[in-house]
């Protein structure tokens, strides 16, 4: 592996790790607010309304004179397309400065611990996700401490990345259950029970559906898997069938794992007020919020890496039809990965604007009676294709 190819001192290893972690964290901290902004806007346009319109792009405020001038020149100000974008700063400020209320009968320790577990689990997953299976750039020679070292597209290259991710992701449910239990309140309790049942049920088909690409590529490593699945090396063209089905099963389970519509029963606001985080306020609620959106990004990143060909242009082994010599599209690129993640995130928002919510028992039905048998069959088909063709 490249990171081990170059000998590094301990200081260099630690500093490099810190830089990589910080880079990913900052990226996530930028992505999450952008995602909330996109959610406001995308759902807004789907619902014939404007979404957030305050701040930036208006006729008043700091950017007001500029926008007015541009309108006066007969041009649409650039900022008017992003109206409401800075609202995420206001959101963050609001969450941070709001009074942090702990209910009198709550278990203070666990109540505080729960959002931390949630957000830790969500962010920890990023450690093993590879956005780009190689070096993004090399620090110049004169750079202090890390001069001459490559900046990788991943934090660590774990060879059992999938196991790590699944393990850590299932820790997230503890945050929800503990938080709800510690709130000592009835609606959160119901919400957490729903959430626990839901996440445990959907973990099975989720894992089973992820086994399809693992089986087909024969690797647990992101990089190898992406290459194998995108270019379809040594795979029958029929492999596209289990991959395609697996992708949709995975996406369904991903919606359930992240508590998004139509599986948002844990926080079903019309039934359980706000579900597991009813009693939370301030930044503790903000952590849950952050964790939910970070989870969305993780699910999208995994879907991209496992099913959509990762950083290659085309998924499902179709990349083999693109000559590797073709400029740009023939080579893996971080841009492709990012675009695919955005596409799946858009699907999250799209579904939210379209579908109603499942009922608790129906959710279980879908999980146990449909998805698990389907994934098993799918896995069998994948194995058949892998070894028979």
């Amino acid at each position: 592996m490249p990171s081990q190819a170059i000998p590094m001192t301990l200081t260099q290893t630690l500093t490099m790790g810190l830089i990589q972690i910080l880079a990913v964290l900052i990226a996530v901290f930028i992505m999450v607010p952008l995602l909330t902004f996109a959610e406001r806007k995308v759902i807004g346009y789907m619902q014939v309304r404007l979404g957030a319109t305050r701040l930036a792009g208006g006729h008043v405020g700091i950017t007001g004179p500029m926008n007015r001038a541009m309108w006066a020149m007969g041009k649409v100000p650039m900022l008017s397309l992003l109206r409401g974008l800075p609202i995420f700063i206001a959101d963050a400020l609001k969450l941070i400065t709001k009074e942090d209320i702990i209910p009198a009968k709550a278990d203070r320790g666990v109540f505080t611990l729960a959002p931390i577990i949630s957000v830790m689990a969500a962010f920890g997953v990023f450690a093993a996700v590879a956005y780009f299976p190689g070096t993004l750039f090399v620090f110049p020679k004169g750079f202090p401490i890390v001069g001459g070292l490559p900046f990788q597209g991943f934090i660590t290259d774990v060879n059992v990345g999938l196991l790590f991710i699944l393990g850590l992701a299932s820790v997230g449910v503890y945050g929800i259950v503990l938080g709800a239990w510690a709130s000592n309140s009835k609606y959160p309790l119901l919400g957490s029970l729903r959430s626990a049942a839901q996440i445990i049920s959907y973990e099975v088909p989720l894992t089973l559906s992820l086994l399809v690409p693992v089986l087909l590529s024969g690797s647990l490593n992101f990089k190898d898997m992406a290459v194998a699945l995108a270019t379809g090396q040594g795979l029958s063209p029929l492999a596209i069938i289990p991959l395609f089905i697996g992708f949709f099963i995975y996406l369904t389970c991903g919606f359930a794992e992240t508590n998004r519509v139509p599986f948002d029963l844990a926080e079903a606001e019309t039934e359980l007020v706000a579900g597991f985080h009813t009693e939370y306020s301030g930044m503790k609620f903000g952590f849950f919020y952050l964790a939910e959106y970070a989870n969305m990004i993780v699910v999208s990143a995994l879907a991209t890496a496992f099913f959509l060909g990762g950083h290659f242009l085309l998924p499902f082994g179709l990349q083999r039809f693109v000559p590797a010599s073709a400029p740009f599209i023939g080579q893996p690129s971080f841009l492709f990965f990012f675009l695919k993640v955005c596409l799946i995130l858009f699907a999250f928002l799209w579904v939210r604007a379209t579908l109603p919510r499942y009922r608790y028992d129906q959710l279980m039905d879908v999980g146990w009676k449909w998805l698990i048998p389907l994934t098993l069959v799918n896995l069998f088909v994948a194995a058949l294709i892998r070894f028979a063709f």
Partner: protein
Amino acid sequence: MFKNEEMEINLGPQHPSTHGVLRVKLRLDGETVVSCKPVIGYLHRGVEKICENKSYFQGQVWTDRMDYVASISNNLGWAEGVEKLFGIEVPRRAKYIRTLLTEQNRLASHLLWLATHALDIGAMTVFLYAFREREYLLDLFESFCGARLTTTAFRIGGLREDLPPGFIKQAQVFQDRFLDCVDEYETLLTENRIWKKRTIGVARLNAEDCIALGVTGPVLRAAGVPYDIRKAFPYAAYGEMAFEVPTRTEADTYARYLVRLAEMRQSHRIIQQCLEGLPEGPVMAKIPKILKSEVNEVYHPIEAPKGELGYYFVGEKGGTMPYRMHVRAPSFVNLQALPKMVEGRLLADVIAAIGTLDVVLGEIDR
């Protein structure tokens, strides 16, 4: 060490989907509802007592505040009830305009119902689509009487003013596009698998139970009873209108959804007839400045969007104020059926049942 315990939970009075201040005491076994008891009265303002101390003209203002979603229906009930008490015959043009506005209000009420019911079940987009059309209707009301919600649209004996210029044209614009809008809602819901799963077979209430519990309106019609006061006891200009009473026999939430959508189409038809056949003439009957009643009592039922809305008046000799005014509020009576609908079912069905009953707390608590 471990024991089974039922959990008592208060749904409301402050809860996102109880449509106001309804409080439902639920006993839950897990997620299953063991018993359900609606607790009402949080919005009680004593409208009946107030109206006993207001003149026949003033009391109408209070009717807006009962079913504030369908205030024009309430106005119509009051105005026609008082007219029945005094034996006033309203000019034909006024009757047509009343019918027109009441039907538009029925559309507005059903749109709000559709919006909130879909939102309760989790379908978020229908909410805003329905509000788009409702907004247009509210603008029409505003152009007619200056208020969007609390309209006080009619006067005893007819109308205060004729339709404003341009009203018919604007109403026609709405008419031309409304049916497409209903189709649009249907594309989002009618064949949606999750919507069907959440509504079919949920909150069933068969015809016998409906009649025994006094449930009227779309809930009764979705149980297969074609009872519509507009047909059974015609009032205003409904006797001259051609329309159908849509019914279903499944008696569940989905059937009520379909019935209400069909009713919107029928209302559209009635509005079209009103717009086309609007007769000329005065809009106000000749009535004295001060109405003094004789000893008399009347009960006047109309078909409000939610069911039978009845106004009961007792007049005393020479009285300028009702001796007794009582409102038979459809939501009040319909809400009685809630325990029967949800007991033994899941918590999420309680939300669907409250939504499908289409209750307005202003009317229940009065």
